[in-house]
């Protein structure tokens, strides 16, 4: 449904763009696109929406080219921006009317349902809304047109946990109807919660694409041991911390090597657990550049 082929964007002013990003997102899939601020998430989103033009490479959405067919694409895409900037002087209801007017008839019962679930007040001015409430306006405006593809850039920022939960329910409903969702975020737990697959972007390069299940099942283990011995740090250990006689780290090497390593130590206590996505994420981020570019 969404296909990026060696998509590259350089900015003139030395700001980092994206380099050689290739990936394919299937219809009905929720794809998490994660990386810290400045990694190239928004650049990717902006390129897909043709706010900016690719330097090289190309991308298609439902077979349509993001540059030459951008109008056709925008007819079927719902977009929630990370920073919501709408016309301050408009009332919420007028704004939503304006936003939907580009798409034709509005599904009024569906809109009423969205407004009710998100507890949105239609009779207020945009400028009087909090960030979270503006985000709700963006969610309604994006979902109400029944898009085939949703492009979300940090969609949950500003929403309280309850509303985040409502939002995820709505996304799951969309997914059931076959909507493809591109979910850009730096919050791993939400990606873990809702996404089928995850792509990790670092300094403009896509360094890993895996299913959430697989990424959780990688060799990496979180190890916590209690020992008085000196633990030699090797290259497979990351996030090493020493607190109160405990040493904890994420081990990225072979499991048998870990067992061997532990066998040489006077280990008084040990716990080995599956790492949280956050820790795996750190794992991709702390490795050297050259060995992490995988496609």
């Amino acid at each position, binding site marked *: 449904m969404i296909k990026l082929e060696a998509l590259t964007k350089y900015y003139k002013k030395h700001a980092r763009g994206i380099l050689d990003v290739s990936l394919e997102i299937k219809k009905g899939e929720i794809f998490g696109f994660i990386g810290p601020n400045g990694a190239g998430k928004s650049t990717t989103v902006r390129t897909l*929406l043709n*706010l*900016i033009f690719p330097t090289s490479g190309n991308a298609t959405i439902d077979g349509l080219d993001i540059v030459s067919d951008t*109008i056709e694409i925008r007819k079927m*895409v719902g977009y929630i921006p990370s920073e919501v*900037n*709408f*016309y301050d002087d408009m009332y919420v209801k007028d704004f939503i009317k304006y*936003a939907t007017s*580009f798409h034709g008839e509005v599904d009024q019962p569906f809109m009423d349902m969205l407004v009710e679930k998100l507890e949105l007040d239609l009779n207020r001015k945009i400028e009087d809304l909090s960030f979270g409430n503006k985000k709700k306006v963006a969610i309604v405006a994006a979902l109400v047109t029944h898009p085939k593809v949703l492009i979300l850039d940090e969609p949950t920022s500003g929403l309280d946990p309850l509303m985040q939960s409502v939002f995820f329910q709505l996304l799951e409903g969309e997914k059931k109807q076959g909507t493809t969702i591109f979910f850009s975020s730096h919050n791993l737990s939400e990606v873990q919660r809702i996404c089928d697959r995850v792509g990790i972007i670092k300094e403009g390069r896509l360094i890993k694409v895996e299913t959430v299940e697989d990424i959780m099942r990688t060799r990496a283990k979180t190890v916590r041991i209690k020992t008085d011995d000196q633990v030699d740090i090797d290259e497979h250990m990351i996030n090493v911390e020493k607190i109160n006689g405990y040493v904890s780290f994420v081990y990225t090497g072979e499991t048998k090597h870990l067992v061997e390593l532990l066998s040489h130590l006077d280990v008084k206590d040990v716990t080995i657990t599956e790492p949280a996505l956050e820790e795996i994420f750190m794992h991709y981020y702390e490795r050297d550049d050259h060995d992490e570019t995988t496609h």
Partner: protein
Amino acid sequence: MKQLIKTEFKRNLRSLILWSSIVAGTAALMLLLYPAFKDAFSQMEEFLSIYPEEFLEAFGMGEGGLDMSDFYGWFGVEGYLFVNLIGGSYAAILGGSILSKEEDDKTIEFLLSKPISRDHILYGKGLVVAINLLLLNTFVGIVLLIAFTIYGDLNVPVWLLFSYAPFILQMIFASLSFFISVFIVKSRKVISIALGIVIGMYVIDLISKLTDEFEYLKYITPYEYINAVTIVNDETIKPLYLLISVLIIGVSFVSAWFFYRKKDITA
């Protein structure tokens, strides 16, 4: 595009009403002063004769210029300039901000996620500028019609020219600022530059009239294209000037379109 035009028009309506009132109000004020000055004109002519000819010409009162004791002459010297300066300022502000405001306020991200092409955004906004300026001049035109009818014989061609010639000047300023705003998106910066052009061109107009040496400058200042002397005395706008005006407006708009369609929106 229809929704965009409608929404844009609504959003700009309040400022249109405000500016129309200011322009028409200033024109009306100058017209109201006419009866009071009419009697003083004999003294005034004597008073004015102490000024050099070039100076009087600069304000349209020299030889072959306007007769201030005539109602149209009075308006051409005293009212028309304000209409052009204030109306021109409105045009420059509107033209310079209608497009850049979307980027400055970052609402462009919303607009460009909707199925509307950049071409249509540009046409739509350009059209709203033209409509607003036509409405402003129509409003001023109505005030002039009433005044001209009350104070003297209504000369229809002169009335129409006084009402709609400023539209040409305003469109020039609006399209120039529209073009600049493709590159400079900070509204405040665009407006400063645009107003600089409005005032700067007026200064150039004065210089071209005050000195023979720089007379050629008259070809680059829109104030000259629609000057009151030609309107009152010849009841026309010179075809050459009309052609230059259309070219400036056309080239500015087409250039704006050319660069905007390929522009990275990074706001």
